[in-house]
C-alpha cells in the first residue's frame, strides 16, 4: 500500500476544503492508524508493538535513503508510513526479521521495478505477497478476524468509504466488492460450500485493509476511471481463480499479478498516445 493521494478537481470553496486538499495525503495514514488503534484497544490485535515499530521504521528509513540516493529528493514519508504499518498489521510472525525484510523489500520494489519513471507494484503488496508466497515457516498472513464487534467494523467501513470517495477511488472499491460478491456466489455454486462461507473473508480485517488501501492506491492505479473499473474486475476474477485453487492469500496474489501488468500497459498506452499527439503533422510542402 502506498497511497500518495492528491485531490484533484476538488473546488476550493472553503478554507477547510482547501486545507483538506493540501493535507489529504495525511488522511489515509491517519485512517489506517485509527483502524489499528480501534483494533488494538478493542481486541488487542497486535501481538507485539516491537514488530510494528520495526516495520514502520524500516519502511520510513528505507524511503528516506532510497529517495535521496536514487531520486535525489526528500520524499514525504506518508506513503512509507502506510507501507510499514500495513506490513506490521498484515503479516504475522513470532520473530522480528520478517517485518524488517518485508518492509525493506516493499520499499526497494518501488525503486527497482520502474517504468517511465513510475513504480509498477504497490509496495506493500509486493513485499507481503513475496513473503506469503514462499510459504515460510516464519511468516503467515492476517487471515483471522479481529472480533465480532459489528460497531467497530461498521465504523471502519463507513470511514473507509468516505475516504476512498474523497480520494476519487470509490468506484474501485465498489466495483471490487460487487465483483467479489458475485464471484463468491459463483464459487459457492462450483464448490458446494455455503454462500456465507465464500463471502466470509470480506467481513475480515485483511479485506478491509485490502479494499481501502491496497487496491485503491493511486500511484499504481491506471489513469482512467474506466480502466480502474476494468482492473478492479480483473483483480476480482484473478482472485476468483486463485481461490478455486485454495490459495488463502488470493487477493494479494491477484493484485500482485494484475496490478503491475495493467499499470505497465496503461503507461505504455499513454506514452504512445502522447507521442502520437506530439508528432508534428505534415508541413505545407509535404507530399503526403
Amino acid at each position, binding site marked *: 500500500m502506498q497511497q500518495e493521494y492528491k485531490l484533484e478537481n476538488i473546488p476550493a470553496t472553503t478554507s477547510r476544503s482547501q486545507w483538506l486538499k493540501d493535507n489529504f495525503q495525511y488522511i489515509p495514514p491517519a485512517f489506517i492508524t485509527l483502524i489499528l488503534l480501534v483494533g488494538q484497544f478493542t481486541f488487542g490485535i497486535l501481538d507485539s508493538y516491537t514488530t510494528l515499530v520495526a516495520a514502520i521504521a524500516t519502511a520510513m528509513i528505507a524511503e528516506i535513503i532510497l529517495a535521496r540516493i536514487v531520486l535525489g529528493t526528500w520524499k514525504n514519508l506518508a506513503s512509507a508510513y502506510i507501507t510499514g504499518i500495513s506490513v506490521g498489521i498484515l503479516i*504475522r510472525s513470532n520473530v522480528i526479521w520478517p517485518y524488517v525484510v518485508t518492509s525493506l523489500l516493499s520499499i*526497494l520494489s518501488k525503486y527497482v521495478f520502474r517504468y517511465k519513471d513510475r513504480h509498477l507494484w504497490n509496495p506493500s503488496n509486493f513485499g507481503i505477497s513475496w513473503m*506469503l508466497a514462499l510459504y515460510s*515457516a516464519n511468516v*503467515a498472513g492476517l487471515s483471522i*478476524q479481529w472480533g465480532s464487534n459489528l460497531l467497530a467494523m461498521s465504523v471502519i467501513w463507513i470511514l473507509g468509504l468516505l475516504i476512498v470517495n474523497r480520494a476519487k477511488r470509490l468506484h474501485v472499491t465498489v466495483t471490487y466488492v460487487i465483483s467479489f460478491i458475485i464471484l463468491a456466489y459463483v464459487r459457492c455454486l462450483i464448490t458446494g460450500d455455503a454462500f*456465507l*462461507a465464500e*463471502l466470509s473473508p470480506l467481513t*475480515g480485517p485483511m479485506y478491509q485493509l485490502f479494499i481501502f488501501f491496497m487496491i485503491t492506491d493511486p500511484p499504481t492505479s491506471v489513469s482512467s476511471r474506466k480502466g480502474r473499473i476494468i482492473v478492479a474486475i480483473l483483480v476480482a476474477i484473478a482472485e476468483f481463480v486463485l481461490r478455486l485453487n485454495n490459495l488463502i492469500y488470493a487477493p494479494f496474489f491477484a493484485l500482485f499479478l494484475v496490478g503491475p501488468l495493467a499499470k505497465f500497459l496503461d503507461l505504455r498506452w499513454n506514452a504512445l498516445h502522447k507521442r502520437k499527439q506530439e508528432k508534428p503533422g505534415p508541413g505545407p510542402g509535404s507530399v503526403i
Partner: protein
Amino acid sequence: MSPSKKYTKIIITAIFICLLAITFVASRNNDFFSIKRNSRQKAAAEKAFGFYLEPVNKEAKISFRHIAPEVDPKLNNIKMQIASMGAAVSICDFDNDGWNDIYFTNSAIGSKNALYRNLHNGEFEDVAGKMQLAHVNRKGSGVSMGAVWCDYDNDGFKDLLLYKWGKPELFKNIEGKRFERVTEGSGLPAWVNANSAIWFDFNNDGLPDIFIGGYYKEIFHLDSLNTTKIMPESFRYANNGGRNFLLKNKGNGKFEDVTNEYGLTSTKWTLAAAAADFNGDGYPELYIANDYNVDEFYLNKNGQRFEEKGREAGVGHIPKSGMNASFGDIANDGNIGVYTTNITEKGILIQGNNYWQPRSDRSAEQPSFVDLAQISGIENAGWSYGAQFGDLNNDGFMDLYVANGFISAKENTSYWYDYSKVTGGNSAIIGDAKNWPDMEGKSQSGYEQDKIWLNNSDGLFEDVSDKVCPAITYDGRAVAIADLWNRGVLDVVVANQNNIPLVYKNYAGNDNHWIAFDLQGTISNADAIGARVEVEWDGKKQAQIVTGGMGFSSQNQHRLHFGIGKSDKIDRVVIYWPSGHADKIENPEINKLHIIKESKPNN
C-alpha cells in the same frame, strides 16, 4: 543517467535480488517437519543422546484403540473437526502394588475404556471390565474425554474422576479390588462438554477439590443437537464456550459447586488446566489454557477466591489456541515454568508454543512470566496438543515431549484454505457450523510427527524427534510420562486420536543416576497434590510439583523422577507440603524410589 546514479541503481537492484534470494532459501531450509525416514538406529541414538524410545504395544500386550465420538448428523460437514478429541491417558498405581498402571479413554458410544494393570513382567492386562471402568460411554450419559486419579477421600487408594462430553463420573476405589460408581449425589454437574479436569486442593484443607473446564457449552449434547450454532464466535476472541466448574470437596463424598463464589466465571473454550503455587503463599494458582482466546492465570487469594490476572502476569495478552498446560523447571534453578501448546502451520498460522518462565521471585504476590519458548528452541512444533517435561536420559535436565497432528485423513489434502475462509469472518458466519465448508475427508495439519526436544543444559533444546524413535505420524493428543517398568528411566505413553496409543519403552544408553519420590500426605491431602520437591546436587537445584493432572487430557505418574547425570551424590532434598510444613532430607540414597510420608510438624 549519470554513471554514479547508474551504479547506485545497480547496487540497489543487487541488494533487492539478494533479499529475494535469501528469503527464498530461508523459507526452504526452515522446515520444522523434516521427517527423515532414515532415522538413526537405536544403538546410535542411545550413544548420541542417551536414550531411545521404542513402541512396545505388542510386547506389553496393549491392544487398545481409540475411536472418535459420533456427532449429530447436522455437523457432518465438519464431523472430523468436531470429533477430534477424546484420546486421553492417565497413569496411576490403582492397586498400590508399586507399579504404574495405565488408563485410556475411548469416545464412541459403546466403546470401552481400558485400565491396563501392570503385571510386573513387562506386560499389562486390561482389567477395566473387571474393575467396572470399561462400559462408561453410553447414550444419554456421554462419552469419555479424559480421566484423572486422586485419593479424594484420603483412604489410601486413588479414585477416578472421568470427564466427558457428558456427565462427569466419580468412581471410588475399593482397596484396589474394584471401583464403585459414586457419581449420584456427589454434587458433580449434570453435563459438561469437558476436555480438561484436574484435582487440586485450592484451600489446603487436606481434601482434594476438582476443576473441570468446559469446551462446548454444556447445553449442547453433541450427538443430538437442535442447532448448528455451536461454534466459537471468533477465532481469537471467543467467549461463548462452556462454563468451568470449581467443585469444593466437602469431605463426605460430596462436592459443592463454588465456581461463581470463587470467581471462575469465564466461558472461554478451555482445553487444559494445571495448578501450582507461583507466589509462595502456599495456595495453588490455576493456569487455564483456552482455545480461541487468551489463556488465563488465576491468582489464589488465600484459598478464599480466585482473581484472574492473566494480563498482569503477562500470559493473557495474545490470543492463541491454548491446548496444554504443563510444568517444568528447564534451567535447574528451582523456577518452574508453564508450557502451553498452540498451532503452527507453515505460511498460514504461526502461533508458536509458549514456555512461561516466572520472572518474579516466588515471594512476589503477583507473579509475572516471560516467554522463553523461542529462545529455548521449543516454540514451533505443529498443531500441538499434549506436552510433558521429563528427564528422558537422566542427565539432570528436563526434556520435552510434544504430541502433534490435528486430522490425518486423505493424504496430500488440506482443509486449511476452507478453514481460513470462515475463521476470517464475522461471528455470525464462524459461529454456525452449517457455514463451515465440507471437509470431504481432507486432512488438516495431519501426518505430523510428535516433537521430542532434548534439553542440552545450556537453555537450548535440540530437536531429536526423528532420531530417538521411529517416525510415526499419528494424531497425538495426550502425553503421560512414567517409569512403567520400575527401571529408573521415564517411559512415554501417547494417546492418539482414532488410533492406537504409543507405549514407548525408554532404552537408556547411559549409566546416569536418578532418584524418585512418591509422596504421601498425612496433614496435607493423601496424594500430596501441590507438594513441591526441590533436589539439590552438584550446584543445581531442580524443582517439581505433585499434580492431580496436567498437560492435555493426561496425568503423569504420581511419583516425581529426577535424573542427576553422572553425579553420585545428592546434597539435599526439600519437600514443601501443601500443609505449609517442610521436610528436609540430607544425602538421600540415589537410584532409588523413596516413599516419603509427611512428617508431623514439631510445635
